[in-house]
């Protein structure tokens, strides 16, 4: 018996030739792909991957206002500090520290292609890892957020613009009858970021109520109240 997906000849990892072909398709076509800027184009491609570079924006972790960090609706801007490092300068990543960065390249994937970003082997051998959530979904567009970890015992200098990762793309067997439907859906989660993005969360009680947990213990948030009363206006 032939499966429905067998009608597709497209399988496996995309070759550099296929990627280059799709990069030159009109943007209106669902099978078009974008990688911009594509610097040093001749050496950027391997037969089954494309090199990506480190971008110029970073999110450093900062000490949260409370003694703990709870991923919830209010947490998005409390855990990170945004830093811009122009091309030509560097950022210092202390030993055993992590920073969020992004690729210099803006990517638009196809509706029938998923991808994975991997640390370049030369970078990994300096005990620097760039990804713990490496999967890129079909139709994704944006600069890829990188969780850059220095797992060595030495501070590491990171230069924006240098090659840091490689992206491997794989075909997703979408049923032909559903191609146009899948191509038309653009998910708005992490849609089109050009900087590293802090993750948005729902409150834990909302997430857990979805799976039938009625009661969730949360630490009440301190509400700010002035402890000193403002001076009364003197009557003239």
């Amino acid at each position, binding site marked *: 018996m032939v499966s429905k997906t067998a009608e597709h000849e497209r399988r496996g990892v995309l070759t550099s030739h296929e990627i280059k072909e799709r990069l030159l398709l009109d943007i209106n076509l669902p099978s078009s792909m974008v990688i911009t800027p594509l610097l040093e184009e001749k050496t950027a491609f391997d037969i089954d991957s494309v090199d990506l570079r480190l971008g110029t924006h970073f999110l450093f972790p900062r000490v949260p206002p409370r003694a703990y960090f709870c991923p919830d609706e209010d947490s998005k801007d409390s855990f990170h500090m945004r830093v811009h490092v122009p091309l030509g300068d560097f950022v210092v990543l202390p030993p055993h520290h992590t920073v969020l960065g992004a690729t210099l390249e803006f990517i638009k994937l196809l509706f029938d292609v998923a991808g994975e970003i991997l640390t370049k082997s030369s970078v990994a051998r300096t005990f620097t890892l760039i990804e713990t959530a490496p999967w890129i979904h079909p139709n994704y567009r944006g*600069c890829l957020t990188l969780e850059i970890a220095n797992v060595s015992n030495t501070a590491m200098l990171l230069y924006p613009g240098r090659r840091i990762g490689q992206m491997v793309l794989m075909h997703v067997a979408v049923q032909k009858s559903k191609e146009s439907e899948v191509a038309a859906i653009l998910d708005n989660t992490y849609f089109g970021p050009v900087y590293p993005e802090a993750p948005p969360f729902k409150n834990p009680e909302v997430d857990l109520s979805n799976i039938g947990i009625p009661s969730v213990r949360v630490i009440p948030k301190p509400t700010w109240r002035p402890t000193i009363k403002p001076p009364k206006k003197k009557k003239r």
Partner: protein
Amino acid sequence: MKAFRDIQPYVGHLVTRTFQGHEARFHGGQHFECVEAIQKYLGWGVVPATLVNNGRAFYPDPVLLINAAYLFYLEGIPVLINRIKQKREERANYISQREKWGKSVEQWTLKALEDLRLPNDREFWAW
């Protein structure tokens, strides 16, 4: 608009005097096509730094890019919003959606302008 039209000749004179013929001008023709292409890219939520036309990749002129992006900001955001999967409550609040995606358009344009400063051997569209 009346005030703008009143000062327009003076602004034009100052621009001509300052740039002495080197100022960017809109020439129609290929410039129109480039503006349309930039808007198409923004309409799909893509940074318009590398534009493909008839199987060839080009860079947009930065001045055209800024103007086309602003035109898209004024007229094209509904095209983008309609292509993005949204929850019912998000659809209901059109103003906040417009504000949100307006900011994204601004970021994509700035990213394209940053990328245009990088050295590359591609041709400029309508150069």
